[in-house]
């Protein structure tokens, strides 16, 4: 930590677009499309609605900082992670991540079900780019941390889901990463193991590890993060001190989500009827009659 100002993660104007038609991946759909176009006598393709999962997101993370990424479901958090990990490339903009990173996203991804836990440690490490000789000395620590004991030589298909995830977590934190991407850590194991995980993460944080954390649990963000980034519909709403961002975030959620359900004003009634009206005229009358006794 000689130069804490030096950014280790840089995202510059990152945008990620998913074209809606990309989900159509079979020849049948292609033929349908061609046939329709032929019948309609028009060469122009249907206008494709692009979906921007990320829109112009820029930030830098200096080494040693822990950043929480908050936002509602579908706000682009996972897409941002995938972009930073190199799983997908941004449509626009540029990301650069310096140093070895490890992910706590896919616990046990790539495990070979038929082989033992011990062998899967090597496999999982290799998938994340760490050769066996570098993980050799940490084997005992990994097994101890995962609390697997003699079960380590059983095929992982016999493991309970808790054992599976514990082993995955244990491997990821023992790979000596410079950067750790964490997605919902508290989904692992029982309460005791979860505490241990948090403890371990705090320990690594003290050791100078840079972390990016996605979680829906405010308490975790407050406890672990130095800084928070709030994403909403792919755009960056706020970036700054954890407390300030979380306050604003909850205020927004309260105002847009919870408040309307608590005291329904006369305005929301047509608003809730709106999506129904699109489905058909005979359905439309039903919610209108139901809502009238509620209004006063």
């Amino acid at each position: 930590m000689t130069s804490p100002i030096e950014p280790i993660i840089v995202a510059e104007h990152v945008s990620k677009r998913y074209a809606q038609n990309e989900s159509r991946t079979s020849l049948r759909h292609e033929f349908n499309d061609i046939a329709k176009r032929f019948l309609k006598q028009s060469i122009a393709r249907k206008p494709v609605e692009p979906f921007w999962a990320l829109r112009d997101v820029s930030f830098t993370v200096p080494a040693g900082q822990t950043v929480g990424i908050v936002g509602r479901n579908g706000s682009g958090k996972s897409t941002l992670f995938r972009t930073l990990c190199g799983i997908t490339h941004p449509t626009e903009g540029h990301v650069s991540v310096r140093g070895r990173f490890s992910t706590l996203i896919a616990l046990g991804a790539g495990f070979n079900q038929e082989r033992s836990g011990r062998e899967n440690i090597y496999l999982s490490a290799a998938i994340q780019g760490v050769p066996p000789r570098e993980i050799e000395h940490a084997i005992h620590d990994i097994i101890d941390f995962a609390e697997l004991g003699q079960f380590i030589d059983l095929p992982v298909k016999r493991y309970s889901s808790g054992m599976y995830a514990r082993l995955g977590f244990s491997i990821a934190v023992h790979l000596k990463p410079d950067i750790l991407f964490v997605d919902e850590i508290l989904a692992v194991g029982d309460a005791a193991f979860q505490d241990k995980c948090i403890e371990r993460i705090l320990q690594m944080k003290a050791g100078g590890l840079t972390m990016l954390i996605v979680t829906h649990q405010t308490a975790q963000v407050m406890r672990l993060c130095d800084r928070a980034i709030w994403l909403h519909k792919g755009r960056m709403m706020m970036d700054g001190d954890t407390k300030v961002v979380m306050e604003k975030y909850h205020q927004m959620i309260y105002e847009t989500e919870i408040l309307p359900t608590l005291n329904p004003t006369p305005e929301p009634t047509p608003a809730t009827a709106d999506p129904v009206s699109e489905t058909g005229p005979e359905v439309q009358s039903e919610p209108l009659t139901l809502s009238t006794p509620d209004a006063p």
Partner: protein
Amino acid sequence: MTTDLDKEFLIKSQIRVYTLLSFLKMLAVLVGAMLVAVQTRLKYTYGKPLGEDYQAHPIGLYLLMALSVVVANFIILILVRVGLKLTVALRQLLILWLATVATTGLAWLFIPALSQLQLAYFAGAAVIFAPCVTVIPAMWKGSDGEPISFHLAKLWSYRVLLLIWLRYNILARYSQATLGILWIILLPLATSGVLAFVFSEFLRIGVTTSDVPFVTFFLAALVPWTLFQQSITKGSTSIFNQIGLIIQVYFPREILILITLGEALVDVFFMFLAMLLINAVSGVWPNWFYLYLPLLILIQALFMLGLMLFLGSLSVIVRDIPQLVGVVMQLLFYMSPILYPASFIPERYRFILAINPLVPLFQAYRDVIVYAKTPDFSTLYFPLVVSIIVLFMGYVYFKSKEDGFADRL
């Protein structure tokens, strides 16, 4: 992950090598075209009969080729200096086509003994090959647009993963059953035994193989065919069978294809052992010419790898590909001389053999395994050249689509 500084350094050091590499690449394309032309001229009986002492490709021909490439490079360089705006790929394509014309012309002038038909074949092949290695791959450049050497270096850094993964997959496959290691040999023995029995005793429709047992004759082509079929069939599904992993962890995706190829090679190795057993029962023993087999397998592996990379990435976009592959494999089995010798095909259908690179390969396998002789290397030019081009194009295509795998799955 490489930093920008690393990349800058790489680019600087590569620039000097780049000129040499692009020269070698162009020369390789022309040499490949010439080899294909030589094989076509020698093996298929069109044109005037050639004398016994016919020099198909004297060394002077290759010198002319190198000269043409240099001259073509200079011409294009001058045109670019003058102000002609060309992309790198287009520039290379033009250089190649110019060099093709120059080589053909020079050879026609200075090596009069050379068959003109062969030169025509050469020009045709070179004109077709040129866009395959220049313009078409350039159209496929992915969003990161890194050069192939960058991807290969990355793949090399993941070599340990490849080895570990392959080892565990193979061990996992054979360790669960009770009979264990015995299955490895029993299953292929049963399969090839039944196939051999049915085709040699029941379905033997006028196939005479003179003095060798039909079983041996049949198996010598069936085993490499099985390798081909298994690799392609499994390779076309190997990417989207690993959706869970692909959307969660980054690693060079071609590792999945390489593992599939490795597994198929191991599986077929045991089938090969079973074949040796059946052959021994029929009185045919292994011979020293088996030492040529690695070369044949290498050519076949290059070809398969190219197709697997191409089909594996294409099937992510078009999900019907595996079904299509199944149908094509069925057709290809009967269209290839596996059940019958190549000489059974009537003269007017011989062009089918000329475009199927598996045919000369199967013939070479038979030469080694059945007839215990050196394979005719001039028939392997075509499979070799086609394999390298297919592999190159397949890899570039795969890498250009790789980025989209996680988005489309």
